[in-house]
């Protein structure tokens, strides 16, 4: 053997390691969620950041039995986005009010701009979904665009799995009918 490294690691940062696993597994999906809605890299970054800041603040109430970490984070993301829209509608300085605001470096702006471009098809689909009731639209987006399992989407929307299935069925039927030639 030429080199060797061994160490005894103290355990106190287990919670940070646990949260990092949750963060790493979900941050790209959440960034895509906001990139689909916002055309500005800084806004995408702020909303993604705000989602995780809120998640950290509500860790005490996190219960993985209710749909798992992804459902929990998407539930938070939906609230973060709704609040962002409310503030924007009232002409408030949305970004300054967000806890997760951080000025982006140039390479981050470029990276996020690429992700916003990547979500073009998703944005177009979202626009087509505006004809659907809010809950149906949200169900379809979470399952078909964000890749959540139905049980996760149900938890994120705080509805039963049965209710989610009904919303999905109705949403897909409505979409199909809307796209059929008249």
């Amino acid at each position: 053997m030429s080199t060797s490294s061994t160490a005894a690691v103290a355990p106190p940062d287990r919670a940070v390691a646990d949260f990092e696993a949750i963060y790493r597994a979900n941050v790209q999906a959440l960034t895509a969620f906001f990139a689909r809605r916002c055309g500005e890299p800084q806004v995408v970054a702020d909303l993604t950041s705000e989602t995780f800041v809120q998640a950290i603040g509500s860790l005490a109430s996190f219960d993985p039995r209710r749909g798992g970490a992804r459902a929990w984070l998407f539930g938070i993301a939906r609230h973060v986005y709704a609040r962002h829209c409310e503030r924007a509608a009232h002409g408030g300085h949305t970004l300054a009010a967000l806890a997760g605001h951080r000025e982006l470096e140039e390479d981050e702006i470029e990276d996020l701009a690429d992700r916003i471009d990547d979500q073009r098809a998703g944005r177009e689909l979202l626009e087509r979904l505006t004809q659907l009731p809010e809950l149906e639209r949200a169900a379809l987006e979470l399952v078909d665009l964000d890749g959540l399992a139905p049980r996760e989407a149900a938890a994120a929307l705080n509805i039963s799995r049965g209710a989610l299935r009904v919303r999905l069925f109705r949403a897909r039927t409505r979409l199909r009918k809307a796209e059929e030639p008249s």
Partner: protein
Amino acid sequence: MSTFEDRLWSELVDVHGDEMRFPPSGARRRRPALLTGTALAAVAAAAAVLVFTAGTTAPPAYAVTTNADGTVTVTLNDIVAITAVNAELARDGVAAKAIPITSDCPVHGFPNPMPAGTDPNTYTVTIDPRQIPAGYTAVVGVAQTPAGKIELAQAAFRSAIVPACFNVTPMVLVPRKP
């Protein structure tokens, strides 16, 4: 993981690291549940994944050893040392990563097994960096049994972004062709 996501994580830890407190185990089912030894063994048997169990005497949390023949041996005896192991591998320039296997990870499936390079008698995984194709990462799955034992499953090279965890619970096991 992109620059944005890495920087955001660093900032979250710097600013909010002290607030990362999960509720006590009574309120929370438990930390991301790791596979039981039986479940991991089933996966290993079906997919020929090589599994090693850590020793029972109080060993170091981890060891990353570069051998004379250029291979790298990873030993892990404490689940919290995954980050340290990965930092060590990165420092050594080895395209390998230890990944926790959890039952609530949203990333399903587990890479196909990586050929050879292991010694079950030493409870370690040995990787030959020269066999890892450019742009690929050798994945070492890490599971902890309810008794606290660490099990390592050396898996295939993965070309895409390596996820933070794997979930093999609902995996459909298909016997491999000889």
